[in-house]
């Protein structure tokens, strides 16, 4: 039997944000997530930290929230944010009246912007089309969602917060119209247990309706699928937005070693539906190539999709027109005290959403400690001294990236391992510059159950080779530390990677798929499970 004050259901960015906030205020809190962290829209999106420019015309309140939170996250989450800046470019075919509305919107929402000439824009981004008629620089940035989530978890742990991944909610226990606890289940082992708690926070995003239903409640959430494609290099160095009424395929985000183009917007019944169709890929390419010339010549790494949790109050708008704002629902009004739901919103404002939800929880529990998440950094930076010492052991260019990925404590551990064990200096991932030491330190943690978990924590397998080379290496390391059967892990990982590849089997991607098959089916002969 677990005992806590608050049980958060959902390990997306909102859930982990609430866990951190409540833990910092001294409220005993446990988070459960049925998969790995960030399984839903929190990671299955651009990785864009909005300046608010995207919402400047349609929703000024959201735009204002974005720019405020953008400033805060750059401060508290420096290791997750890459301050690329963003461009808004209008093409000759786009409505010029929209540009005027956008300028007014930015001014009124407090979004700083600077007009540059089309020539200047093409100097900044040489792949931009010559059809640009106007361009503006705004403080957009890219953000690593997985890293942000785990840094929230690590921070929460320092304050006594706890999280269980691969754990789902089975049932909400209630007595006399009040939440008394929950039954939860480890999906890997099947083991169930009870949690004694006073409050359940439903932060399940696109799954919020399903979680509410377990308590017999109704929450209107429309899963809205957005598909994106990933190119194998940084085609742009800034976020590039098209300056027109928001539509599909009009944002490019440089992220680590890749570029992400998205998104589409399709209402789906089931948030688990993350299939990307070729029709969607074709649509994204057709629109994307209007902004970047020769777009089809670049290699696509993969495609992916996630479901935005659009909140549908009765009679509200749907799809792209639906509000990107968020709502907090206290189900006490419907007869179940202690049950709270948060829906809607967007990654950029997750901290604010977490703050508002935590305020609500504290109000119910009578806790008066104020929120500190806007001022206290997520993680302590690795000192330049520590980086200097580590340079002796890390491969070239590896130190800065590793310091950002690992944070102070793990970086220390990894450096010590590199120092003492030559073998750990092997570069297991040439694409993202990840050493065996880093993989070994992270793989040993109890939250790592598969090569997929390892990938989301270290970026190994996310780069250009898409696991062709590192799958064997990681499976070998997994086997050595006693985590899983290497053949099973390899097969699973190659299958999982291919899910993102089959919708984009054209051009150079097709060539890479042949190579994957030549290695794993032909040279390793692991296709046959018997």
């Amino acid at each position, binding site marked *: 039997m677990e005992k806590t004050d608050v049980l958060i259901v959902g390990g997306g960015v909102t859930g982990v944000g609430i866990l951190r906030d409540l833990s910092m205020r001294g409220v005993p809190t446990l988070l459960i997530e049925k998969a790995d962290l960030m399984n839903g829209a929190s990671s299955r999106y651009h990785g864009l930290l909005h300046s608010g420019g995207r919402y400047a015309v349609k929703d000024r309140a959201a735009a204002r929230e974005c720019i405020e939170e953008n400033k805060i996250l750059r401060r508290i989450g420096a290791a997750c944010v890459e301050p690329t800046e963003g461009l808004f470019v209008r093409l000759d075919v786009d409505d010029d009246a929209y540009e005027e509305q956008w300028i007014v919107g930015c001014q009124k929402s407090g979004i700083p912007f600077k007009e540059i000439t089309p020539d200047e824009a093409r100097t900044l981004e040489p792949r931009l089309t010559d059809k640009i008629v106007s361009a503006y620089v705004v403080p957009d940035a890219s953000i690593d969602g997985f890293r942000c989530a785990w840094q929230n978890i690590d921070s929460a742990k320092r304050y006594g917060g706890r999280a269980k991944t691969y754990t789902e909610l089975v049932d909400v226990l209630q007595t006399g119209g009040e939440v008394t606890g929950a039954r939860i289940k480890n999906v890997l082992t099947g083991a169930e247990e009870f949690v004694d708690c006073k409050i359940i926070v439903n932060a399940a995003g696109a799954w919020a309706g399903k979680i509410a239903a377990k308590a017999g409640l109704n929450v209107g959430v429309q899963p809205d699928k957005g598909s994106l494609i990933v190119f194998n290099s940084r085609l742009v160095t800034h976020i590039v937005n098209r300056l027109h009424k928001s539509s599909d395929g009009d944002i490019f985000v440089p992220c680590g070693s890749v570029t992400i183009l998205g998104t589409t917007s399709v209402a789906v019944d089931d948030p688990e539906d993350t299939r990307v*169709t*070729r*029709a969607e*890929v*074709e649509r994204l390419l057709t629109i994307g190539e209007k902004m970047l010339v020769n777009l*089809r010549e670049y290699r696509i790494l993969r495609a992916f999709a996630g479901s935005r949790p659009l909140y549908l109050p009765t009679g509200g708008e749907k799809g792209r027109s639906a509000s990107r704002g968020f709502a907090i629902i206290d189900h006490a009004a419907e007869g179940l005290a202690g049950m709270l739901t948060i829906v809607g919103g967007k990654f950029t404002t997750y901290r604010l959403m977490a703050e508002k939800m935590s305020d609500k929880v504290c109000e119910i529990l009578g806790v008066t400690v104020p929120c500190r998440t806007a001022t206290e950094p997520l993680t302590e930076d690795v000192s330049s001294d520590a980086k200097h010492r580590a340079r002796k052991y890390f491969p070239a260019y590896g130190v800065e990236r590793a310091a950002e990925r690992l944070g102070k404590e793990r970086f220390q551990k990894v450096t010590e391992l590199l120092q003492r064990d*030559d*073998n750990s*200096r*092997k*570069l297991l991932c040439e694409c993202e510059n990840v050493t065996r030491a880093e993989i070994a330190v992270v793989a040993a943690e109890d939250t790592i159950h598969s090569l997929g978990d390892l990938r989301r924590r270290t970026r190994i397998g996310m780069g250009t080779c898409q696991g062709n*080379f590192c799958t*064997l*290496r990681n*499976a*070998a390391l997994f*086997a*050595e530390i006693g985590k899983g059967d*290497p*053949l099973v892990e*390899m*097969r699973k990982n*190659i*299958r999982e990677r*291919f*899910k993102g*590849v*089959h*919708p984009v*089997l*054209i*051009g150079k991607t*097709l*060539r890479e*798929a*042949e*190579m*994957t*098959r*030549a*290695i*794993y*089916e*032909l*040279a*390793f*002969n*692991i*296709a*046959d*499970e018997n």
Partner: protein
Amino acid sequence: MKQDVVVVGGGLSGFTAALMCAEQGAAVTLIFAGAGTLPLSGGVIDVLGFDGQKREVQNPAAALSALPSKHPYRKMGVESLQGAIDWFKDFAARYGHPYEGELTTQIPVATAAGTIKPTCLAPRSLNGSPLVAAKRIVVVGIVGLKDFYERLVAAALPKIFADKEITAVTVDLHIGGKRDMTMLDVARRLDEPKTQEAFVNALKPYVANETAFVTGQILGMNSVTAVDTEERLGAPIRETTGLPPAVNGLRLAKIYERAIIDAKINTVRGAKVIAAKRDGRRIVSVTAKAAARENEYFADAFILATGGFYGGGIVMERFNEPYEPIFNLPVDFIAETDDDLPTDIFAGVPQKFALTGLMTDEHLRSIDGAGKLVAENLFVVGKNLSGYDYCFEHSGNGVALASAYKASHECLCLK
């Protein structure tokens, strides 16, 4: 200058076709841009490892007749395959890199994933038969070597060899400093007598009755090193297929390189063939683009050996629109819709996209969907051919050799 034959493509099928034509007295020009798949594939000659239901094939020669009628082997017949196998074994032996195996049996090859794969021909160093026969297997890793994981292999092998005693050892040869080493690095060092001796001495303590050793593709770039190492050790030590670069693929590429020089084949390297000229149903010339200029090459017959999607012989920049970029030959492929995408990479059946290629008549000349001849002096070999998924059925190098054999004979019949 007009040649008898121009071969386009520098993989196994192109090299073999060029050599076979030259051996029959033809004046040959060989034009290629890339390295083919030899560095990728390990250089073992898979003829047919699995049937359409992914069942392991015991006798490749006997299994050919059960293949679908569109399969290249059905067009070429077992005679071409047998002729190609005989030629290859003779050729490889003459160049000091002999292969073992017959068309009617399979050789077990150990892999770096700790599995066994069937192949038809392999050099002794990759022939895993002694591993099957041994009572004890010692898996050998090298300190500093990346991509061969002795403990992984030792953990996986018991699934196949439940009754054997399997252990892993890691040998420190004090090579490579502290940098990462590939199999190629280690192979080059093992060609040195001093390093080879250290290697053998390190393994000697593990030699016992009915013991066999298995390791990565590291036993020398020179073909004699592997055999010599085994003799000095006094027990079988065999290599595995695994991640590229595949050392044995490079050994094979090396003997082909020597052979095309010996055969006085006019070789144009680093040149990409970009266009062709035709006169009615005859191909007259191809144009190749090198760094400095474009050149036109004339011949009586042409052999196309530019590969499939991997080699760039077939290109698909847009969904369901594959094309052959030099001659614009009709491409045979199965369109995939959104309801029918290949969502599982290990689907248990051949992948439709992998069957893409060029249709031919029984002489390996390109035909269109209606069966009409496209060009009477253009022959298609290797992964340019449609109707087979070499990754699924393990047949790539077998088709490459057999089609080269067939095409070289057919095109010289034109004279």
